C-alpha cells in the first residue's frame, strides 16, 4: 500500500526500529507502514472516533486524547520520534502542542501547509477571497485549520522555543519534495514543509 507523498517524506525521516508517537494519527496509515514495514514501535494519538476505530481495525496502537490538553498519558522522553503531520494548524494551542511534543520525544517531525505560498497570497490579495488549495481544501467557515502559519512564522516559533532544525524538506502542492528552483524563495514557492526538529540544548 502506498503512502500519501507528504507522509512518504515524513516516513523517510524516521529510522527503522525507532519508537514513534504520531499525534493526530488519523486512520493510522503512516504508523501501520512504520510498524509493519520498518520495524518501528508506534502509537497514535487521535481525537476522533473514526480515526480511533480505523487504527484499531488496522492493529495500530492508538490512544484517544485531545493533544490541546497536553499528553498526560505519556512520560518525558518516552519516544524517539514524535510526528505531527498536517495537525499543528488544526490545534487550538500550537505552541503548547509543540512543547509537549518535544517533552515526550527526542526528535519531532512537523509537516504543515505554508500559508504564504504564492497561490494563497494571490487568492487573498487579488481575488479578495480566503485561500483554498489542494492542501487546504476547506471554506473559511468549515475548516478545521484554525492556526495557519507560513514557513517563516514556523521558524520564528522554533527559535522562540529554543528548538533547532535538523532537516527541512519543502513540498509542492501535491506533497512531493520540490526541486531546487523553489528553494531559493521557500516562503513564496513551497506549498508546504516537513521539519525535523530537536532541542537546541540536548
Amino acid at each position, binding site marked *: 500500500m502506498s503512502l500519501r507523498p507528504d507522509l512518504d517524506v515524513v516516513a523517510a525521516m524516521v529510522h527503522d526500529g525507532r519508537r514513534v508517537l504520531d499525534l493526530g494519527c488519523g486512520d493510522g496509515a503512516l504508523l501501520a507502514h512504520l510498524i509493519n514495514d520498518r520495524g518501528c514501535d508506534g*502509537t497514535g494519538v487521535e481525537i476522533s472516533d473514526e480515526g480511533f476505530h480505523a487504527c*484499531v481495525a*488496522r492493529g495500530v496502537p492508538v490512544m484517544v486524547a485531545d493533544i490541546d490538553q497536553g499528553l498526560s498519558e505519556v*512520560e518525558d522522553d*518516552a519516544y524517539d520520534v514524535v510526528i505531527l503531520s498536517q495537525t499543528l494548524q488544526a490545534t487550538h494551542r500550537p505552541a503548547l502542542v509543540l512543547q509537549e511534543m518535544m517533552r515526550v520525544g527526542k526528535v519531532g517531525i512537523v509537516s504543515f501547509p505554508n500559508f504564504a505560498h504564492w497561490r494563497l497570497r494571490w487568492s487573498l490579495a487579488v481575488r479578495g477571497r480566503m485561500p483554498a488549495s489542494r492542501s487546504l481544501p476547506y471554506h473559511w467557515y468549515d475548516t478545521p485549520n484554525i492556526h495557519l502559519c507560513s514557513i517563516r512564522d514556523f521558524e520564528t516559533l522554533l527559535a522562540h522555543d529554543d528548538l533547532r532544525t535538523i532537516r527541512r524538506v519543502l513540498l509542492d502542492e501535491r506533497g512531493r519534495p520540490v526541486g531546487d528552483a523553489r528553494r531559493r524563495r521557500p516562503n513564496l514557492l513551497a506549498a508546504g514543509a516537513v521539519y525535523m526538529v530537536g532541542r537546541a540544548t540536548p
Partner: protein
Amino acid sequence: MLESGAALGPVEVAYETYGTLNADRTNAVYVCHALTGDAHAAGHHGDPDRRGWWDNIIGPGRPVDTDRFFVVCANLLGGCQGTTGPSSTDPATGRPYGLSFPLVTVRDLVEVHRALLAHLGITHLAGAIGGSLGGMQVLQWVIDHPGEISAAMVICSSSRLSAQNIAFSAVAREAIMRDPDFQGGDYYGTDRAPDTGLSIARMMAHITYLSEESMREKFGRRLQHGDAPRFDFSVDFQVESYLQHQGESFLKRFDANTYLYMTRVMDYFDAFADPAAVGATLEGTSTKFLIISFDSDWRFDTEHSREIVRQLQSWRVPVTFREIASPWGHDSFLLEIPEYHRTVGAFLARTADDLAI
C-alpha cells in the same frame, strides 16, 4: 505454593466455558472476574432470568464472540462460589479454613487460572479480559508471562490502589470484623454469621461503584412512601431502600471471609513495584494491551488507567487506550455501553484476524 511462601492444597476450581475450542487450541479467551463475581459469566442454567454477570459482552455475535472464541471463566482462589477459599474445608483439620486460609495475591490468582488452562490443554490465550480486580489479574498475567496472551484487555482497573481506595476497603473489613457474629472468622456452622457487617460493607462499596450523577438520576431525593417525609430513622428515601436491598441480597451469595481476602488482594497489589523485574519480562512483549476507563468512575478513575498506560509504554508495550463517556461510574464495565462494546469487539476481532482464528 503461594507467593507468600505458604502452601495450600489441594485447590478445587469452579469454572464455566462458552463456545468451542478449535483444533489448534488457539482461540481461548479468559475472563477474570472482579471482587464479587463468580464463574457464571454468561448464558444461563435453565432460568433465562438468571444470566451470567457479563452476559451482555460474552455470547454469539457479542464483543467476546463465542462463535469465534472459546471463553473460560473461573471463580477466583479464595472465592466462595466453588473454588477453594476460606469457607472450604481444610484437609488438615477437617474444618473450614476461616482466617487460617493463607493471604493470596493477584499473582496467586493468575497461577490458578494458568493451572486450569493447563488442565484444559491451552498454552496460549487469544485474549484475556477483566474489569477492576479482573483487570489487575490480566495485567499481572502479562507481567509474569509475557506473550502468553495476545490481546490483554484491562477495563477500569488499577496498577495499585490509592490511599482512598484502601481506606474504603479498610472500612468494609472493619464492618465485618467488628460484627459480634464474626467470631474471629470461625462462624461457619454456628448459625450466626457477620451478616450485618457484610451487608454494610456491600452497601458502602456499592456507593463507590455508582456516580453521583447516576444516583441523582436513579433516586434523587425521592421518598419510598408518598410525598411526605416520615421524620424518623426508618428507610424513608428510595436510595436507602436500594442500598438495603443490595446489602441483603448480597448475603445470599457471598461469604464474609472471602470479602476480607479479596479486598486485601487488591490492597497489596502493586503491579509495577519492581521496575527491574517488570522491565526484564515486559520489554518487547508481543502482547497488545487495550486499556479502557470510564469518565464518571471515581472508584478507579481514569488517572489509574493513565498510569498503567504510561508504565506499559515505558516498556515499549503496544497500548491502545480510551476513556469512554458513561454516566454510570465504576459499574459501567458491566453495562452495555455501545462505544465500549464496539471497542472491545473490534480489538478482539483484529487479534483474531492476526491469529487467523
